[in-house]
C-alpha cells in the first residue's frame, strides 16, 4: 500500500540524513558552491523572464510596474508602522492619545489606492486586448494534451507527432548525474518559424493540461472537448522550454514543452524532412520485421510511453495500473492484446486508445515486447501489417 511504502521511504530518508557529514556537505555544496550542479544551470534566478515575444516583454513590463507600485505602497505603510512601533512604545514613555475617527483620512485612503488601481488597470487592459487578438495568423498548430505528453498537428501540412519527456529514469531516480535540461527536455520539440504570428489551438484528450512557455508569456489551459486559442510572435531563434501547468495526474511534473524557433528557411527544410518521414513510416508499415527488431524497438516504446503507468519492471501500480507481467491479456489471445492497445480499455479511460498516438510499427513492437518480457514468454510476435488489418477490419 502507498502509505506503508511511504513509511519505508521516510525511514530510509532519515537513515540517509542521519549521517551528519552527508547532510551538512549536501547543504554546504548546494548553498555555497556553484559547482554541485552542472555549470550551465541558471541558479538563484528570482524574476520573471522577459521572454522573446512582444507580448512577453509587455507582460514583463506590466509585472515590474505593479511590483514597484506595491513596493512604494509598502514603503509608506510599513514606514509609518515601524516609526510608530519605535517611537510610540510604552517603554519609551509614550502616552496614548485617544483619537479614533477621521472621515477625511478614510476618504483619502479610499481614493488614493483607487487611483493607483486605475493607473495599473489601463496598461493591463491594453495588454489583455492585444493578447486576445488571435483571429488571424500566419499558421495554425493544434496542440493536444495527453496524459502525459503533447501532440502537435501542423494544420494543413500533414505533419503530426507526439512530444514527450526524454530525461532518462535513472536521472530521475538519482542513479546518474542530471543534465542541464533535466525534466525540461523532450524527444521531439515543437518547431516553429520566427517572425510569424503562430496561432496555437489548444485542447486535450483526457484531463485538463495547460500549455505554458514562459518565454512567450503563453499559458493556456488545454480542456478536453474544447479548443482554446492563443498566439505567439517569436523574434529570436532559439530553444524555449516550458512545462505543463495544470495538475493532470501522476506525471504532471513530467510533461515538459520544448519549442525550437528557427529562421524561415531552416524551418522549411525541417518541415520537408518531417513530411518525408511521414511517408517513410507508411512504407515501413508494409515491411516485415524480425523478432529482435521488434523487441528492441518495443522496449524503447514501452519505456517511453507505457512505463509511465505500467512501470519499467512491468509490474504496474495495482490497483490503479495493472501489472503486465503475468497479465491475462498480455499472455492471452493476441487479438485481446491488440484490442486494448488499439481501442483502449472499456472499463478504465486511463488505458486509452493508442492507435492515434503510436504508429503501426510501434504498436506491433510494443506488443511483441510485452508478450516476451518479465517472465511473459509467449514467444510470438506481431507485424505492423497485422495492426493495420486489425484496424481496417473495424477492430474486431
Amino acid at each position, binding site marked *: 500500500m502507498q502509505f506503508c511504502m511511504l513509511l519505508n*521511504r521516510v525511514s530510509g530518508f532519515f537513515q540517509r540524513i542521519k549521517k551528519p557529514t552527508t547532510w551538512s556537505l549536501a547543504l554546504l555544496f*548546494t*548553498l555555497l558552491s556553484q559547482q554541485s550542479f552542472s555549470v550551465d*544551470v*541558471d541558479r*538563484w534566478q*528570482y524574476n520573471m523572464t522577459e521572454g522573446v515575444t512582444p507580448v512577453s516583454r509587455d*507582460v514583463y513590463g*506590466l*509585472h515590474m510596474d*505593479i511590483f514597484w507600485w506595491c513596493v512604494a505602497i*509598502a514603503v509608506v*505603510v510599513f514606514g*509609518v*508602522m515601524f516609526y510608530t*512601533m519605535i517611537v*510610540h*512604545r510604552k*517603554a519609551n514613555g*509614550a502616552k*496614548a*492619545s485617544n483619537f479614533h*475617527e477621521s472621515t477625511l*483620512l*478614510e476618504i483619502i485612503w*479610499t481614493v488614493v489606492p*483607487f487611483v493607483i*488601481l486605475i493607473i495599473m*488597470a489601463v496598461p*493591463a*487592459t491594453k*495588454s*489583455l486586448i492585444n*493578447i*486576445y487578438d488571435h483571429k488571424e495568423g500566419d499558421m495554425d498548430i493544434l496542440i493536444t494534451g495527453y496524459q502525459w505528453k503533447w501532440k502537435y498537428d501542423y494544420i494543413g501540412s500533414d505533419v503530426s507527432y507526439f512530444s514527450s519527456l526524454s530525461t532518462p529514469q535513472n*536521472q*530521475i*531516480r*538519482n542513479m546518474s548525474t*542530471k543534465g542541464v535540461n*533535466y*525534466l525540461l527536455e523532450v524527444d521531439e520539440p515543437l518547431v516553429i518559424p520566427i517572425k510569424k504570428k503562430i496561432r496555437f489551438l489548444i485542447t486535450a484528450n483526457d*484531463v485538463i493540461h*495547460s500549455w*505554458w512557455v*514562459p518565454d512567450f508569456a503563453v499559458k*493556456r489551459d488545454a*480542456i*478536453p472537448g*474544447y479548443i*482554446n486559442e492563443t498566439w505567439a510572435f517569436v523574434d529570436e531563434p532559439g530553444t524555449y522550454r516550458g*512545462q*505543463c*501547468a495544470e495538475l493532470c495526474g*501522476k506525471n*504532471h*511534473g513530467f510533461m515538459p514543452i520544448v519549442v525550437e524557433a528557427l529562421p524561415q528557411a531552416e524551418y522549411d527544410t525541417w518541415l520537408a524532412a518531417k513530411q518525408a518521414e511521414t511517408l517513410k513510416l507508411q512504407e515501413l508499415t508494409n515491411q516485415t520485421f524480425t523478432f529482435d527488431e521488434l523487441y528492441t524497438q518495443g522496449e524503447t516504446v514501452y519505456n517511453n510511453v507505457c512505463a509511465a503507468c505500467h512501470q519499467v519492471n512491468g509490474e504496474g*501500480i495495482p490497483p*490503479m495500473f495493472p501489472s503486465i507481467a503475468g497479465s491475462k491479456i498480455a499472455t492471452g489471445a493476441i487479438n485481446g492484446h491488440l484490442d486494448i492497445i488499439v481501442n483502449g480499455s472499456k472499463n478504465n479511460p*486511463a488505458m486509452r486508445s493508442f492507435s492515434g498516438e503510436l504508429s503501426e510499427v510501434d504498436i506491433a513492437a510494443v506488443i511483441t515486447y510485452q508478450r516476451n518480457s518479465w517472465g511473459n514468454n509467449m514467444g510470438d510476435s506481431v507485424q505492423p501489417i497485422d495492426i493495420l488489418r486489425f484496424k481496417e477490419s473495424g477492430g474486431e
Partner: protein
Amino acid sequence: MSAHHGPAKGITRWLYTTNHKDIGTLYLWFSFAMFLLGGAFALVIRAELFEPGLQIIEPEFFNQMTTMHGLIMVFGAVMPAFVGLANWMIPLMIGAPDMALPRMNNWSFWILPFAFTMLTSTLFMDGGAPNFGWTFYAPLSTTYAPPSVTFFIFAVHIMGASSIMGSINIIATILNLRAPGMTLMKMPLFVWTWLITAYLLIAVMPVLAGVVTMMLMDIHFSTSFFDAAGGGDPVLFQHVFWFFGHPEVYIMILPAFGVISAIIPTFARKPLFGYASMVYATSSIAFLSFIVWAHHMFTVGMPVAGELFFMYATMLIAVPTGVKVFNWVTTMFRGSITFETPMLFSVAFVILFTIGGFSGLMLAIAPADFQYHDTYFVVAHFHYVLVPGAIFSIIAAVYYWLPKWCGNMYNETMGKAHFWTAFVGLNLTFFPMHFSGLAGMPRRIPDYNMMFADWNMLSSIGAFFFGASQLLFLFNVIATIRNGRKASDQVWENPEGLEWTLPSPAPYHTFTAPPKIG
C-alpha cells in the same frame, strides 16, 4: 434546572455537552490536531522537494499529499479554529448566556471528527487518497479519479452540513441574543466579522455541496456535466467550485481581521481607529468576494469581456482591505505600545498579510497572471495570507484569550520564542517561493530542474524549522493550562470588551442574566 451547575465529569462532558465554552474548546483542540496532521503532510511535500530527483515518495503519493494537505488545512485546521473562537467569544462578547441553539452546536462539532476520519482513511484505501488537488478539477476528479473519491465527496457533504449549522447558530446568536443596549454598531469587530463570515458560509457551502453532487453523478450515474461529449463542460466545474472557493478564502480571513481588531487596540492602549469604516470595509469585501471568482481561471480561455470584468472586480478588493490595514496602523499611531506575544503576532499579521495581499493584487492583473498562474508564486501568495494571516491570527487569539479561558497566564518568554522562531521559519519557507515561482516552477510537481533547487532547499529547511516552532506553542499552552501562574480578571491593561468583566477563568455559565450595556 440546568443553567447553574458546573461541567459533568468524565468523557461524557465532551460528548454530550451543550456548553459553548466546552464546544469552543473541542473545536480548538480538533483544529490543532488537524493543523499537525496537515503540517505533517506539508513536511512530506517539503522533504520530497528538498532536492531535485525523486527521493522518498512516488509522484502518485505526492499528489495525494498535496491534496490532503490543502483540504485538511483549509477545512480541518483554519475553519474549525475560527468556529471554536466564535463559540468561546461571541456569547462572552455580546453578553449572551450561550449560543442560540446549544444542542445543534454540539452536533456541528461532532460531525467533524467523523468527516475527517473518513477523509483521512482514504489514504489507506486501494488506489490511494484523492490525488487531484484541493481544487479537485474535473475530469481528473471524476472520470480519472481513484475510487476513494466517493468517500471524499461524502466527507465534503457532511462537513458542509456542519459548517452551515454552525453558521446558522452564530447568526441566530448574534442577531437574537445580544444583551439589551448592545446595538449592532456597538458590537466588537470580531462579532461583526463573524456575522458576515457566517453569512458567506451559508451562501457558499451549499454551492460546494452542489458541485460535489454533480461530480458524484458524473462518476456513478453517467451524467455528462463535465464531459463535452455529452454537451457538458469541464470548465463548468471550475465556475461552480470557485463561486464557492473565492468566498471561502475570505471566510478564512475575515474572522482574523476581527481578532486583530481586538488585539491591536489593547496593546496600543488606544481605541480602534475607524470602527464604522471597518464594518463597511468588511461588508464590501464580502460583497465583492461573490463577483471575483473567475480570477482563478484567467487561463481557461474566458471571453475577453469576462476576463476584464473579473480583473477589475478583483483589483477593487484592494481598496476595502487597504482601509483595514490603514486603520490598524493608525490605531497604533501615537498609542502607548507594548509587545506581548499576542501583539507580536498581530503586528506580524499586518505586515505579512499585506505582503500576501500585494502578491494577490499582482495575480489579479490578468495578463501578468498568465505567467504567475499555477506556479509557486501563487503558492507563496496564499501561504502569506493563510499562514501569517489566518494561522497567526488564531495563535494571537489563543495567547490573548487563553488566560480568560483557563485562568492561567502563559509563559511570556516562551511565547516570544515561539513568535520569533515562527516568524523566521515562515519567511524562510514561503518567501523563496516567490522567486522559484517567478523563475518558472509550476506548483504540484514532485520534482524539478536544478535551477529551482536552491530556493526549494531553503523552503524545506524553513518548513521544518517552522513546524518545530509549533511544538513550542503546544507545549506552552499545555503548561499554561496545567500549572500556569494565576491570571488577573482583567488580564491585560484596560482591555475593552465584556469578556474582561468576567472572572478568570470565565465561569462555566456566564451572563445567564444579560448585563447592562451603557
